[in-house]
C-alpha cells in the first residue's frame, strides 16, 4: 500500500492523537508542544468546561508529579490525572487563555509592566524552590500572560530536556541556581533595547558563569529589582558618582526644586534691593 505525502502527514497527526475513551474528556484540538509532551484542548463532559490536557510518556514524568502538589497563583492548577489505553499518561489542567510571553512582549509593553511580569515569575519560581522543585527549562516560551494579566510559569521539572540555548546555565548539574540563571536570561530577553544599566546589571549578575556569584535565590533578585524601582542603589551594579547624584536628584526632585526656589527668591530680592 503506497502512502502519499498528504496521507502520511495526516496519519502521523491522527495516530498521535490521544485516545480518550474511558476518560471524561472529549478531544478538541492540539494547542502546543511542551518539553514533556503535547498539550490538547479538551472538554470535560462532567463539569462542562474546557481544559488543557497534557499527554506524555510516564517514563519522562520527572518532577512534574511534584508540581501537581503545589498551589500558587503563578503555577497552573492541575485538576486531574490518569492513564490512556495506549500507555501514555495525562494531566488535565486549567486552560490558560492569553499570550505566550515572547509574543506578549513583542508588542508595546511598558517597562513597569515587564518588571511586574518578572516579579510574578520570580515569586512562582521562589515558591517552588522552597518546596524543592526546580524548573530546569525556564524561558519566555514557558510563561503565559493571561487575559486578566495573571502570569503562569509552565512546563516544570522536565528531566529529559537538555534546556534551551541561551537560557540554560553552563553547569552540568542543574539546580535552583540554574533557574536563577534562566531568570537573568529572561530579564535580558524581556527588557527593551534601551534599558537602564542597573537592570542590565541585575540580569548580568543572575547570569554569572559561576553559580555562587549569582543571586542566592529568586527573592534576592526580586529585592534588587524592587530597589531599582524605588530609585535606590542596586546590589548588582556599582554605579558611577554622577549617576548616584542623578538618582538622588530624581528621588528628591520636589524638595530640591522647592529649596532652589527659596534660594532663587532670596537672591533675587537681595540683588533687587542692592541695585
Amino acid at each position: 500500500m503506497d502512502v502519499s505525502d498528504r496521507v502520511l502527514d495526516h496519519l502521523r497527526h491522527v495516530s498521535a492523537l490521544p485516545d480518550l475513551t474511558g476518560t471524561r474528556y472529549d478531544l478538541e484540538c492540539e494547542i502546543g508542544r511542551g518539553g514533556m509532551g503535547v498539550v490538547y484542548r479538551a472538554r470535560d463532559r462532567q463539569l462542562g468546561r474546557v481544559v488543557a490536557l497534557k499527554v506524555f510518556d510516564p517514563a519522562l514524568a520527572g518532577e512534574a508529579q511534584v508540581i501537581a502538589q503545589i498551589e500558587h497563583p503563578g503555577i497552573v492548577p492541575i485538576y486531574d490525572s490518569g492513564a490512556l489505553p495506549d500507555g501514555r499518561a495525562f494531566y488535565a489542567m486549567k486552560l490558560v487563555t492569553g499570550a505566550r510571553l515572547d509574543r506578549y512582549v513583542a508588542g508595546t509593553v511598558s517597562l513597569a509592566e515587564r518588571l511586574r511580569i518578572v516579579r510574578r515569575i520570580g515569586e512562582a519560581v521562589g515558591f517552588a524552590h522552597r518546596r524543592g522543585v526546580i524548573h530546569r527549562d525556564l524561558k519566555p516560551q514557558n510563561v503565559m500572560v493571561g487575559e486578566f494579566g495573571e502570569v503562569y510559569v509552565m512546563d516544570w521539572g522536565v528531566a529529559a530536556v537538555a534546556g534551551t540555548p541561551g537560557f540554560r546555565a553552563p553547569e552540568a548539574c542543574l539546580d535552583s541556581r540554574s533557574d536563577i540563571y534562566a531568570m537573568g536570561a529572561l530579564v535580558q530577553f524581556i527588557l527593551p533595547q534601551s534599558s537602564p544599566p542597573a537592570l542590565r546589571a541585575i540580569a548580568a549578575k543572575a547570569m554569572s558563569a559561576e553559580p555562587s556569584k549569582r543571586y542566592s535565590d529568586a527573592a534576592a533578585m526580586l529585592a534588587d529589582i524592587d530597589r531599582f524601582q524605588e530609585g535606590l542603589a542596586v546590589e548588582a551594579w556599582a554605579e558611577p558618582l554622577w549617576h548616584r547624584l542623578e538618582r538622588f536628584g530624581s528621588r528628591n526632585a520636589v524638595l530640591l526644586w522647592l529649596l532652589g526656589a527659596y534660594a532663587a527668591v532670596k537672591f533675587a530680592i537681595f540683588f533687587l534691593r542692592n541695585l
Partner: protein
Amino acid sequence: MNKILVGLIFGVVLGALDGATAWFYPETRPVLGGIMVGSSIKGMVVGLLSGWFARKVRSIKWGIVAGASLGLLFAYIVAVMDASSGKSHYLEIMAPGFVVGGIVGFLTQHMGNPPVNGRAETRIDVGSL
C-alpha cells in the same frame, strides 16, 4: 511621629533659618533675634496647620499649595506688623515666607504617620509630581 509634629518641628526650624537670613541685610542685625523668634513662631503656626491639613488631605500638590498659602498669609501678617514700625519689607518677608510655607507643606505630606485608622478623609492622586 505624626504629621502635626512634623509640621511643628520643620516649621520652627525652617522659620528660624529663614529669619536668620536677615543677617545679610546689615540694617536688620540689631533686631535679628527678634526677627528669628517671630519667624519661628510664624513657621510653627504654618507647620501646625499644614500638618493638620496633611492628615485630612493626602496630596503632595495640594499640601504644597496649602503650605505656601498659609506661609504667604502669615508672612503678610508679619509684614503688616513690621510695616507699622516704619519702612516696609513686604517683598523680603512674603516671598520667602511663601516658599518656606510650600516646603513645610511638602514635608508634612511626605513624612510623618497619617492618622491611626489609616485613611485620610480625602485622597487625591499625585500624578507625575
